[in-house]
């Protein structure tokens, strides 16, 4: 039993659908899921991943604890530092401040997607070439922020890079390398796209 109906006449309990993906019943009432754990399916890095979680579980904790996708880190846990950055439907977001149940039916891309299938996204070596990491704990968040930024700004200026990564913090002080890395990655991506004729949007 996952769903409890609520609505204009919602005093009785409705048996909810099998999965929180299904939304409403024919009475116009809308199902409520939880507070007990409910099954969910997340589209992560192009694959459907199923698990069961309480509605209060964040996307970040679900990725880390249920799917062992530990690239995204939990640092501030309040939507400030960017270490948990993932792409949701192509846009950078703080996964510590998204409920997993709310991230269903969306395409979620984590840092692990950048080295999937034996390929490496050019942002990763650009970070290494420019030594844009020290302890490395904030780095996956920066890399994903850079990915989201470059997807939208394939030809950025130096100043745009600084604005584009304003939602991430580092404690070791790797910003000098990060700025250079993003510019180098942009160059590498443009070269790759010229060759293949595709855009990176």
């Amino acid at each position, binding site marked *: 039993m996952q769903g409890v109906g609520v609505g204009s006449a919602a005093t009785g309990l409705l048996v909810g659908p099998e999965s929180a993906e299904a939304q409403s019943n024919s009475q116009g009432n809308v199902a409520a899921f939880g507070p007990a754990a409910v099954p969910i399916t997340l589209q992560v890095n192009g694959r459907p991943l199923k698990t069961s979680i309480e509605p209060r579980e964040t996307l970040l904790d679900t990725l880390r604890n249920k799917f062992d996708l530990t690239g995204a880190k939990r640092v501030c846990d309040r939507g*400030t530092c960017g270490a948990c950055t993932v792409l949701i439907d192509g846009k950078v977001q703080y996964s510590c*401040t998204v409920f997993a149940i709310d991230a269903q039916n969306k395409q979620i891309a984590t840092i692990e997607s950048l080295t999937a299938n034996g390929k490496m996204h050019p942002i990763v070596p650009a970070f290494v070439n420019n030594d844009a990491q020290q302890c490395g704990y904030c780095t996956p968040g920066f890399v994903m922020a850079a990915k989201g930024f470059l997807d939208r700004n394939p030809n950025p200026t130096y100043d745009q890079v600084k*604005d584009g990564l304003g*939602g991430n913090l580092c404690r070791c002080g790797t910003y000098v390398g990060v700025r250079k890395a993003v510019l180098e990655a942009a160059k590498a991506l443009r070269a790759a796209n010229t060759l293949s004729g595709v855009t990176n949007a």
Partner: protein
Amino acid sequence: MNNFAYVNATTLSQATAALGKNWSEAMVLAGGTDLIGLMKDYVMSPQRLVNIKGIKELQGISKTSKGLQIGAAVTFDALAANATVRQMYPSLYEAVMGVTSPQIRNMGTVGGDLCQRPRCWYFRLGHGVLAMKDGKSLVDGGENKYHAIFPKGNAKFVSASSLGPVLVALGATIQLQSSASTREVPAADFFVAPASNEAREIALQPNELVVSINLPNPGKNATYEVRQKDALDWPLATASVNLTMKGNTVEAAKIVLGHVGPVPVDASAAAKSLVGKPISEATAMAAGEAAVAGAQPLSQNAYKIQLARVAVKRALLAAAGVKA
């Protein structure tokens, strides 16, 4: 955080039907950038969350003959990308871009910005919105450098909304809806100083949600935010202005201060003082001076008077296109 039931509303009627009689029963989940933190800190613990991001009626920005209508679930990012916003409402655009985290702009919504709770650290520690303890304000004798210089009674926090001062300056209205009725509230009336530690600082009722924002056609408008950091940071003081010009002189003006009081502060006397005058360094400075005339600083925040004053000056000069 406490557990809750999750409702994914796809229509307005589903959403309003799922709301409750009080905040502990149900709350609206939009971008979540504030609400989820509040819940993690047990400052708010609703039993039910109603996701409204999938409701079509709450999306979209449309230009009308009267101005611009913005859906409550429109993200900051979408707002910043809108050509009309950029061209006609630079005051709005500046406030949106003042949120310098792309992640927050992608997540945060217009309605969420208006409904977010104060960042007052006493409130966040669970001392209530008025930060009262044993009948006394913690703010007065405590750490108040980020607090109000225009307090209202015991309300000494500052409204956290980025858009609030802009909407008040532009004369916007905010459309609210419950399962029973719809009402349109002037932005200036949407923000209220709470009378009790448990009250909200907005006019929204627990059974209502914000549907849209209606912006009238603007005059020359601008926002200036004083922020310490370029990276994501809360403004220390802001000013949003909207000028109706007749040639080089001001016919009507609106000057609204942000992050200096529990509600956006409408500096109407300062605005009036500009009528019939051109905008210059001198008149802008005088308006800034007038705007802070009634300030009542706390023990650590007199510096915010200076910040508000200069924000007004700079916003006026920017709106009028006068170089400082």
